[in-house]
């Protein structure tokens, strides 16, 4: 709110909305053309992260908040990534043991 004057009003929301729709169409398109699995996962995760960034930056105004609040919000997301990569080796081991 303190730096509200930087916001472009409704226009920036319409642009964000349009981009979110474009990315969603891309996501569904990638699934329908059936690319290799690794490429599919990488591209879909990248697109999902792009959508998340758009929503947080513009819809949730994080771009216009003070940096300290941005850090508070973004840091736990890295914990989520660590959580996944901490557990994934175990999962892959179990999978390999079963074969």
């Amino acid at each position, binding site marked *: 709110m*303190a730096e509200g004057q930087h*916001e472009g009003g409704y226009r920036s929301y*319409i642009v964000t909305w349009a981009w979110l729709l474009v990315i969603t169409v891309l996501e569904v398109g990638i699934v329908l053309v059936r690319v290799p699995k690794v490429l599919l996962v990488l591209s879909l995760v990248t697109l999902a992260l792009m*959508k998340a960034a758009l*929503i947080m930056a513009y*819809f949730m105004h994080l771009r216009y908040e003070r940096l300290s*609040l941005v850090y*508070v919000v973004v840091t736990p*997301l890295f914990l989520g990534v660590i959580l996944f990569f901490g557990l994934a080796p175990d999962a892959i081991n179990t999978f390999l043991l079963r074969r």
Partner: protein
Amino acid sequence: MTSGVAEHQHAMGSEWSGGQSPFAVGWPKLMMWLFLVSDTLTFAGLLTGYGVMRLTLGKWPVQFQIFNIGLVSLMTFILICSSATMAVAVVAARRGDGRRVRQFLLLTALGGLFFLGAQVYEWTNFIHEGARLFTNPWGIPQFSATFFIITGFHGGHVTGGVIYLLITYLRWARNRIQPESVEIAGLYWHFVDLVWVFIFTLLYLI
């Protein structure tokens, strides 16, 4: 009001020196952010559990042969649109355009209801095909378990969000709340959309 506090802060020194409002937002908004951060970890836990399970099993039903991807895409579309209408309501509240706030809060709640309706339809079909929480015809029990638990958790959040939006609508209509409260309701609603981005990608597409 807030800008005065912010200026005071800047005068006091660095952003990290604390003071009365180290994040330069009001406490209700800060509390909502902290709630959303902890709720993010709830979903991170659920989705990580799902990912680990899939990696462990190594085989999984082909989702787009089971789910109606068209319907799920429509649900995604509705949720993105309702996020956009919510953003409009927040700007309108800040500009003091009371009528537009009411219109767009209702539109947003309507989007949420459409989403929930589509989800009820999807669940009903899925259950008719034989899916239960711990068993299903596709041979991998974890498939339906993760689906019901994760989409159920999200659906619960959408239901709560619709109620929250309607309460915000009523309180706004009676002049009981400030524009900041609309913005805080908006944060919650965008979060619900944000979580769906990952559920849509990880549960339906990958």
